[in-house]
């Protein structure tokens, strides 16, 4: 009697009444579901935490922990809050039904349960859950909407392709001493404000944030969507970042807090872009010498007391209108030969003291 779609889904039936449990289990098994039972909310909660089912059918009137209580617990539990719950009860009065829905129940089926209605509601709920699960899996491995878009047509695969692109690294200068002068809560708040500004700058210029780590981030321009002006987009992003941080700092100074300073490094060239990780969890990123160089240039900003440093390939591809100052060849950690380094003047006064 098992039907397509129903087969395999695991359901938990929670009811304190034996006749109800037996009948509901029977109807569900006839429809091809695997069924487990619990005789009250407390037992159900233990089951849910040990091995969450695909869906729960829940009675309300029960000893120890009733259906309302269980719904409240589930709602407060991050791991369980997305579990679809269909309340099956013979509640008297609309108020209690409304309360179930408000507590997060997906649906309400009056008892005695009509088998045809049960079948339809279950299918709808499980289908919704399947789509939600799919979306969650997608969001977990796709870093940004742009990446999601780019992979929508071709699908998700691990592994890289060779691209020509620009990479930007930035971090907060003197973050460790700064975080020592404030509470962890203040530090988190500061970081979140800062990330909001940085994401805004990257997104505004068509880049994607590939990684964030501690007080820094890495952004890519020209992948996954190729674009001819990736170097310029990266440098414009860098300049906007500096400007945004200067404005942000002005507010902090006015409030008696220390200013925030950043360093930015940009490098351009060939790299391997793609998903790294597992099929369950992956990030879209780039690897290669160009990426390492961008990171080194960002670190080098501290050595030379400049805010934005770029490599020769970025400068060559920049186009008119952005002033660049050659700092000559510098020996960069990780590079055997000295590298030509260029500074871009942000046009706003941000200098190391």
């Amino acid at each position: 009697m098992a039907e397509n779609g129903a087969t395999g889904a695991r359901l938990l039936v929670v009811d304190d009444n034996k006749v109800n449990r037996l009948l509901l289990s029977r109807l569900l098994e006839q429809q091809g579901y695997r069924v487990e039972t619990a005789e009250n909310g407390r037992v159900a909660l233990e089951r849910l935490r040990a091995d969450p089912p695909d869906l729960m059918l829940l009675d309300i009137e029960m000893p120890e922990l009733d259906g309302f209580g269980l719904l409240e617990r589930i709602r407060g539990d991050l791991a369980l809050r997305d579990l679809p719950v269909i309340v099956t009860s013979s509640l008297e009065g609309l108020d209690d039904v409304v309360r179930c829905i408000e507590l997060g129940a997906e649906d309400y089926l009056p008892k005695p349960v009509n088998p045809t209605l049960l079948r339809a509601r279950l299918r709808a709920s499980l289908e919704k859950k399947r789509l939600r699960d799919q979306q969650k899996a997608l969001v977990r491995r796709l870093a940004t909407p742009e990446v999601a878009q780019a992979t929508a047509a071709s699908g998700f695969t691990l592994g890289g392709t060779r691209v020509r692109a620009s990479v930007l690294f930035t971090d907060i200068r003197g973050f460790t001493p700064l975080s020592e002068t404030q509470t962890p809560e203040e530090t988190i708040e500061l970081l979140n404000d800062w990330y909001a500004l940085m994401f805004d700058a990257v997104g505004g210029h068509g880049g994607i944030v590939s990684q964030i780590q501690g007080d820094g981030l890495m952004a890519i321009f020209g992948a996954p969507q190729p674009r001819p002006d990736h170097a310029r987009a990266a440098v414009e992003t860098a300049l906007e970042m500096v400007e945004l941080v200067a404005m942000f700092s002005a507010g902090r100074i006015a409030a008696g807090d220390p200013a925030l300073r950043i360093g930015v490094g940009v490098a351009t060239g060939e790299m391997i872009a793609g998903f790294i990780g597992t099929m369950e969890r992956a990030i879209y990123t780039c690897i290669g010498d160009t990426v390492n160089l961008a990171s080194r240039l960002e670190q080098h900003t501290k050595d030379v007391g400049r805010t934005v440093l770029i490599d020769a390939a970025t400068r060559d591809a920049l186009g008119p209108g952005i002033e660049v100052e050659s700092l000559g060849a510098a020996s960069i950690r990780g590079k055997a030969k000295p590298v030509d380094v260029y500074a871009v003047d942000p046009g706003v006064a941000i200098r190391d003291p």
Partner: protein
Amino acid sequence: MSDAPIDRATFDELAESAGAEFARELAGTFLADAPRMLAALRAAFEGGDTVAFRRTAHSLKSNAQTFGAFALGARAKALETTGLDAVRAAGGAPLDELDREYARVAAALAELARG
């Protein structure tokens, strides 16, 4: 609602959807379980436990409706919704009436359960 303790159409529907044999077994389970529920209801009444009283009446109502024992279900529902105090005000009579109705249901259901 007729005078019959069990609405035959409802019971037949149950037998059709869950299987005739299963419906008979389920009736047997109810017959084994119900006396405990009636006793629990009386104990809750005597002990003044309003929550247990309401909950047990609710359970009984639900089972009665499943088998088409609508008169029994209606009495149980009345206990669930009006509560323990109303039963006390009536000198416990509604519980006696419930017991009597259950006896009729049990006899009819036992017959159906034999097939």
